[in-house]
């Protein structure tokens, strides 16, 4: 009956309770949605980077990770590739030749990473093909081809079918020039990547490097399911202790930091909103106590212990906060689900977002554990809000309180 009493007390002033419930609900829903947008942006950045070129795992020679020299290639890549062919968790892989060099046109030059790839393997490993805005990906049609970022093309004043001069060092340190025809232009979510990456056929650079077999500096691995990442990594690391097997978090720590900090920021953001709501809830409950002094006096006079009065006020506050909190989660959750399905088109802010490596269509999302954590936060906040009103109520002297009308 105490619960019933508390529940009815919540609704004895419908207007006031509704206002505070709506404010809790909207505050929380807004916080959740903003958090989900931030999480979605972080997720977009990570997925974009994985799709673009990172893959889930990468293998390098430890020396290459220290110093990105052409001579620091993987000595026996075939062993690694053979194992990858047998692993069921691996969807695709691309063994790349990486060369730090210069891209030049008649007008200008720019420092780039020249990535020699097997076009078919690269096509299966990354989503670069889907990011082409002009032309095609590398094929066997022409002798020396290049696919470059649209941004780099603009910077160098080049367009599709233009000739681009690539300069890099061979194994002996000699400067090598490569003239290639631009067959495709890509545009990813990362301006930096678009400006600094040139894709060429591996066999073209192998020839210029004076090697009989491709020099593999990097093996990017795409998994069928990201949940198999730790196991696959462990398998590869144990098989090739002389190589550095890293997951995307290690290769791009800034993305990993972004991922964790976005989550922390979301908690912080919602915590600030809830903190502000505590004052609103406390005010409402204080009003509810102050206008019921006579009634509370009677309850205590007839034998209701102070502890029970305290619990009753606590219960009323909890109910108020719980209804508001659940409503907020429902509204926030529904909004997140809707926009997660249809996306939020932020193309108006494309330039800024691409600077961060994030897509222009955002898909907000919030992990289930966050909803649970927020429920706990609301309950804690409600308890804090209830303290002062409940304390006020139990401090009443029944003999005086019953004479307050």
């Amino acid at each position, binding site marked *: 009956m105490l619960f019933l009493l508390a529940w009815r007390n919540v609704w*004895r002033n419908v207007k006031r309770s509704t206002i505070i419930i709506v404010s809790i609900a909207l505050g929380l829903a807004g916080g959740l949605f903003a958090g989900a947008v931030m999480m979605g942006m972080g997720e977009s950045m990570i997925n974009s980077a994985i799709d673009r070129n990172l893959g889930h795992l990468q293998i390098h020679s430890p020396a290459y990770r220290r110093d990105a020299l052409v001579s620091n290639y993987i000595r026996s890549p075939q062993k690694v590739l053979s194992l990858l062919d047998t692993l069921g968790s691996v969807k695709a892989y691309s063994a790349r030749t990486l060369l730090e060099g210069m891209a030049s046109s008649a007008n200008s030059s720019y420092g780039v990473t020249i990535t020699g790839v097997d076009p078919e393997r690269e096509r299966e490993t990354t989503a670069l093909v889907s990011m082409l805005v002009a032309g095609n990906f590398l094929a066997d049609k022409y002798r020396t081809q290049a696919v470059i970022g649209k941004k780099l093309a603009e910077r160098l004043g080049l367009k599709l079918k233009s000739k681009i001069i690539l300069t890099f060092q061979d194994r002996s340190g000699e400067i090598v020039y490569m003239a290639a025809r631009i067959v495709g232009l890509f545009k990813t979510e990362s301006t930096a990547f678009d400006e600094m990456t040139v894709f060429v056929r591996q066999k073209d650079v192998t020839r210029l490097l004076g090697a009989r077999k491709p020099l593999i500096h990097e093996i990017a691995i795409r998994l069928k399911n990201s949940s198999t990442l730790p196991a696959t990594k462990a398998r590869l690391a144990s098989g090739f202790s002389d190589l550095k097997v890293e997951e995307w978090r290690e290769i791009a720590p800034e993305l990993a930091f972004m991922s964790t900090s976005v989550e922390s920021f979301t908690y912080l953001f919602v915590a600030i909103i809830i903190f502000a709501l505590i004052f609103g809830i406390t005010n409402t409950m204080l009003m509810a106590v102050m206008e019921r002094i006579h009634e509370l006096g009677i309850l205590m006079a007839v034998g209701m212990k102070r502890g029970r009065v305290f619990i009753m006020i606590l219960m009323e506050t909890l109910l108020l906060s719980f209804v508001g909190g659940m409503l907020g989660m429902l509204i926030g959750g529904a909004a997140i689900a809707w926009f997660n399905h249809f996306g939020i088109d932020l193309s108006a802010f494309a330039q800024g977002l691409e600077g961060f490596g994030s897509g222009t269509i955002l898909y907000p999302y919030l992990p289930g554990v966050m909803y649970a954590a927020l429920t706990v936060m609301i309950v804690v906040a409600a308890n804090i809000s209830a303290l002062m009103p409940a304390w006020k109520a139990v401090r009443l002297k029944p003999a005086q309180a019953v004479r307050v009308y």
Partner: protein
Amino acid sequence: MALIDVRHITKTYNSTAVPVHALRDVNVHFEKKEFTAIVGPSGSGKTTLLNILGGLDAPTSGEVLIGGQNITGMKESALVEFRLRHIGFVFQAYNLIPVLTAIENVEFIMLLQGVGKKERHERARALLADVGLADRLDSRPSQLSGGQQQRVAVARALASRPRFVLADEPTANLDSESTTSLLDMMEEMNAKYEMTFIFSTHDARVIERAHRVITLEDGRFQEDKQ
């Protein structure tokens, strides 16, 4: 042994610059089945005496024994329990919890006592029938007249099966008809349950019906008329 034994009770309020002597050395006994009115002008100390008898307030000096048990100096938590088990209260007005129905208001006191759901429901129904409200069990206080609300309050006071009922000016907000009706019902309960009723009042209609009238003036015991 007297049901209530008040010995040399003094109550002085020091909240203002000048101490207010609400009660000065009051000695009085109350026996079982009494239907007693404590009367006197405003400020005479009626309500203070009632509050002390009910354990809602503590005397500055003196002691109150109920059934031989000294309640002065009892801890707050023990006093609450004592009130719940042994004393019924009816206040001047707005006695009831507005969000509970008549039957729920009566049941509530038994809930606090830990009476089982079925038993408290049956007892509450019976008590409300006794006070003539068998057809208003599910009415909220706002749907009842002032007189009906006071009847529910009496039913609630009796629900805990107390040793006595204290009523602080129970008819103050009632019209003549409701007052007569409420007093009839209280006398009936007094007879039926052998329940002791102690009123504070300055209502002549109540004084007329009381079996014993104690008069206070300026906090002093003036007269005890049977």
